[in-house]
């Protein structure tokens, strides 16, 4: 009887040991799996951040490059053109009355050519760097942009802002929204064959929404992404948004046309340190 009692205990202990092992096994699998998953997620996050940084740098250097070109155009060619205009004026004055009709015509022609070139250079520099955006903010910049396009009689562009006063946002965000708006409106003009474009800008619950709707032929963004048709424009919009945690949604309104809705979390200007307006401004070189 004594023996059987001992055997019973031995069995009990063995079984409990086996069970403890099983428990440990299960806990270990659960714990280890969880940790591996967290590690994997961390690595993914790092990778994503790194990619975003790369993209950010690429876009930043693009903006810087534009700025540099605009600066050079303005400072070098602009100045030279002004000087040319001045010299030309002097030449006209000096020639005085002692010239024939032919010479007169050529002079006037060169004068108007130079003036036109000056205008072109100014327009190009302003297109390259949205100075209005930096000085007065999104509302003004968008208004200016559509004002420039409004000369076309067959196209009406309307712009609604959700509020009177649009709080200034971080420069990067304003520029992103502006560039996206530019691309969307350009697309509508280029591809949509439309007569009306509507732009709306609103802030809702910490999100800035930009919607561009046209009444043109419309397109299927899914198909566009699959096919090799996808242009740089739509891709550029996505990569710009990715940097600022934004999203874009293309819709096909029932009454036809196309509509794009971009959303970015707000970034009030106080939260970010102001970047210099003209980084890499070249010192003027005196020859």
């Amino acid at each position: 009887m004594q023996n059987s009692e001992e055997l019973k205990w031995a069995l009990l202990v063995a079984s409990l040991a086996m069970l403890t092992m099983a428990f440990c096994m299960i806990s270990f699998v659960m714990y280890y799996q969880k940790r591996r998953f967290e590690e994997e997620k961390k690595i993914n996050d790092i990778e994503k951040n790194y990619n975003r940084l790369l993209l950010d740098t690429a876009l930043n250097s693009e903006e810087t490059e534009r700025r540099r070109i605009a600066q050079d155009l303005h400072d070098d060619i602009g100045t030279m053109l002004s000087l040319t205009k001045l010299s030309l004026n002097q030449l006209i004055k000096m020639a005085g009355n002692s010239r024939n009709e032919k010479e007169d015509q050529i002079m006037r022609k060169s004068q108007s050519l130079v003036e036109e070139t000056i205008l072109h250079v100014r327009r190009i520099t302003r297109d390259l760097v949205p100075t209005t955006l930096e000085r007065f903010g999104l509302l003004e910049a968008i208004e200016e942009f559509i004002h420039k396009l409004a000369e076309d009689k067959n196209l009406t562009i309307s712009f609604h802002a959700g509020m009177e006063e649009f709080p200034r946002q971080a420069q990067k965000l304003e520029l992103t929204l502006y560039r996206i708006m530019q691309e969307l409106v350009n697309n509508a003009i280029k591809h949509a064959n439309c007569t009306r474009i509507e732009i709306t800008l609103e802030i809702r619950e910490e999100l800035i929404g930009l919607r561009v709707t046209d009444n043109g032929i419309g397109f299927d963004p899914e198909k566009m992404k699959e096919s090799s048709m996808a242009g740089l424009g739509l891709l550029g919009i996505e990569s710009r948004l990715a940097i600022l945690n934004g999203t874009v949604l293309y819709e096909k309104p029932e009454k036809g046309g196309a509509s794009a809705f971009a959303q970015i979390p707000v970034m009030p200007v106080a939260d970010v340190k102001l970047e210099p307006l003209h980084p890499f401004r070249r010192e003027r070189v005196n020859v």
Partner: protein
Amino acid sequence: MFPVYLTYCTKNPVGCIAVFITLLPLILIIYRKAYIDPSFKLLLLYLIFKLIIDVIMFHTAAMHQNNLLYFNIAIPFYYSFLSGMFYFKFSSITFKRFLIASMIGFLIFTVWDILKSNSQLHDLHNHRAVLFAKTVEGVLIIALVLLFFYDIIKSLQIPNLLTFPFFWVCSGLLLYYSSFIFIAPVFHYTATWKNSFDLGIANTIPTLFEILCALFFSIGIYHFSTADYAKQ
């Protein structure tokens, strides 16, 4: 008839719960439509088979008849159903071949074990439990479960194990067979008519874990979602 069952139930309540708790995961599988997953279809078959065997054993035990024949016969079937579940969880062809071979091999082994344990097969009244087969079944199932755990860790495809149905099923099996593995061979010696040796609590542990295993199955099946299965 009924009072006989009642007396048996009051005498052995844990055993009775273990018999009828099988209904819980069984109904849940049907209710959650988990049987669209082939592994859970096999689990359903296993549970149905187990319920039938358990009810027969419950009846014969209440009638004071020897029911160890059913216990022995069920062993290779249990193994086939349970290991069959893993057949669909691994993609390796060699593994699948090995699994099929192990089912056939184990069937032969169990028949040999039954014959060896019972030199007089026609004497059903003195039929004895097998010596090795149940333990070997436990070892094989535990090995399969551990293999599956290894695969989970290696492939890293399941974000949350606590909502992964098959993890619960495996944990239940692991606990049940761990609790049974040392006690099974002792049955061969103790489960006889003239034995006065009572295992006591050691006898109840596997039954308790049988109940726990059924509960684990139920939790797992509860987390089963047909939508998720369709996505895989």
